[in-house]
């Protein structure tokens, strides 16, 4: 029984054509979908961007399905032999690579992150720019691109700040000397958030107060309209929060004591 077909010129041309069409399809979808997504906003934009790796995977599966019958005699035994051999060989040679590929497939339906999400993986925080078959790219606030393999999914906690939505909580911290009227400070900080031009008014504003050995820690929590404006928003809360607190004559805790 022959395993492989005799490759004639027609088969080679067909395979080359399939590979070229697949490459063209992937390149086209990678350019076209982000372009299309820019013309939408909100959830539609996120879904269009998230569909890019799905398209790519579908195109690759279609290509493999079309190529295998042109190379291998399409009997059950042959397919089992070819796929088994390939599986063992690739498994040893590209264990991590294959692991990332499978993790990439898992991300398609578990969706721990989507394009446009703000995530943190092992102290790297940024916006997901692209989700590939093996890895994802995130852009950090310092405009650095970090490429992270999907296999981190198996072992690492992934923190997703907005989880596919437009709502991303920001926190502005204030550290005050303990001698002050906490209710006035809380009211004032709440007012600071409610009057920020960046504020998403459909989400709550929360002030959390925690007494520490060195003073009082205030955490002003609120949501910006656009997740991308999170740093502008936090800066605005901090600037105006400090101004509002200065008018209340409270003293800022300048040097926290870190005694063990």
């Amino acid at each position, binding site marked *: 029984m022959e395993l492989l077909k005799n490759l004639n010129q027609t088969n080679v041309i067909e395979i080359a054509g399939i590979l070229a069409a697949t490459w063209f399809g992937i390149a086209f979808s990678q350019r076209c979908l982000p372009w*299309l997504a820019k*013309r*939408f*906003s*909100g959830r539609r934009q996120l879904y269009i961007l998230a569909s890019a790796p799905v398209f790519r995977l579908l195109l690759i599966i279609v290509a493999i399905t079309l190529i295998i019958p042109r190379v291998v005699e399409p009997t059950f035994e042959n397919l089992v032999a070819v796929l088994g051999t390939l599986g063992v060989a690739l498994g040893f040679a590209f264990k991590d690579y294959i692991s990332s590929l499978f993790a990439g497939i898992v991300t398609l339906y578990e969706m721990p992150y989507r394009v446009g999400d703000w995530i943190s993986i092992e102290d790297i925080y940024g916006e997901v720019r692209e989700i590939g078959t093996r890895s994802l790219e995130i852009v950090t606030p310092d405009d650095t691109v970090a490429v992270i393999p999907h296999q981190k999914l198996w072992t690492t906690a992934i923190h997703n700040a907005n989880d596919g939505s*437009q709502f991303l909580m920001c926190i502005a911290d204030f550290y005050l000397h303990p001698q002050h009227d906490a209710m006035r400070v809380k009211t*004032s900080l709440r*007012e*600071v958030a*409610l*009057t*920020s*031009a*960046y504020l*998403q*008014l*459909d989400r709550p504003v929360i002030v959390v107060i925690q007494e520490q050995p060195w003073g009082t820690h205030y955490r002003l929590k609120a949501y910006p*309209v*656009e997740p991308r*404006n999170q740093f*502008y928003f936090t*800066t*605005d809360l901090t*600037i*105006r929060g400090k*101004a*509002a607190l200065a*008018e209340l004559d409270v003293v800022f805790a300048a040097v926290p004591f870190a005694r063990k």
Partner: protein
Amino acid sequence: MTTQTDDKQTKQESLWQFVPEHDYKTPLPPMADRVKGGFAGLWQKLKPAKQKPINPLAENDVLETLPDRFKQCVAPPPDWRPAALILEKTLVNRNNGSQRKPLIIVGPPHNNHGAMLNHLAELRGWRVIAPPTTRQILGQDESWLQTLINDTSPWILPNLGKCYLRHYRGLTLLRKFFIQIQQPHDQPPIIGCDSWSWAYFQRVMPELLPAAITLQAFDAPHLERWLLELAEGQSKKRPLRFLQSDNGDEVLPSPSNIKENDKKAPPTSQFIKSLAAYSRGIPGIAWSIWSSALHSLPDTDANTSVKASATGQNCQNTIWVLPWEQIKLFSFSVDLTTPQLLLAHNLLLHDGLDFEQLTDVLPFNATECGQALSALTNIGLIEQQSNQWRVSAAAYPAIRQLLKNQGYLIDGF
């Protein structure tokens, strides 16, 4: 004479209607526009950024924009006194019941609820309260509130949106105001508020807000009647014909088509239906677009109008209305930057701001504010009226839709 006045008032009552804010209904676009809007909207998103100029039809080339003096005649600025009269009746009926609490009259931008309430104050002989100054708002100066308390005579505050600033010191005075007006009054105060400020108050101090009513949006038949009344009010001796410039169809029914005792009114034109839907039934916005659509043939219709007006002849005058598709509605050729969006949003939330107030409410310095103002002025999104920057009527539907798409707070009207 009495019968005529009664008839007119009956007509006005059905034209202007005040309803609780949750009963406000915006007119739906005609089915054809909805289908076209779907495809056109998709094309708008997919097409390249370059805007192709609209090629007007050949016959439209000879039409010219209606000169201002004729525009004043056939589409004069809205007169809010009839609305004030209906509001007065609504309030009398309301006060006949047990409701003696303060009432807010909410209105969308360019509906000039301030003018309407000033007319109402004249009708009732009530004093009109001016909003506090910026210094009073940010200084949380209660002397402004004292003027309300010390004088027990009834009062009307035409524009509540001018009594706060989106600043960390800018809400306190307003909160105290709302608490103050909850006190029992012999004559409960009447307060006007623009719909965007109202939406903001509903988010930041919902527990303090009294009940609100609003002028119901104009659907297409109401809008048609109102535009006819505006035109008839100025040119009773000269029946006007409003014809669409591409096919000659009547946009507004002419008097010859409205026969006496004929209960079958001619169907409302597609143009008016589209205008009502696009303007969200807001008369001020609809009037702005309507007046820009009016054209005339040079040295014929317009001159005829002048001569007819001068001699008082019963002359047939034709005003040519551009087809809806040819009206250059406001659109964004480039994406707005975040500072520009925030500026436009805050202008709406405050029903207009001066430059100093803008620097108080926006997280930018004066230079950045100036740049954003300049950019928005250049594209016609905002305009300055007596030191106040406001979103223009022509751009309002487009910026409202954009802000909605971007997730910003919008009004409920």
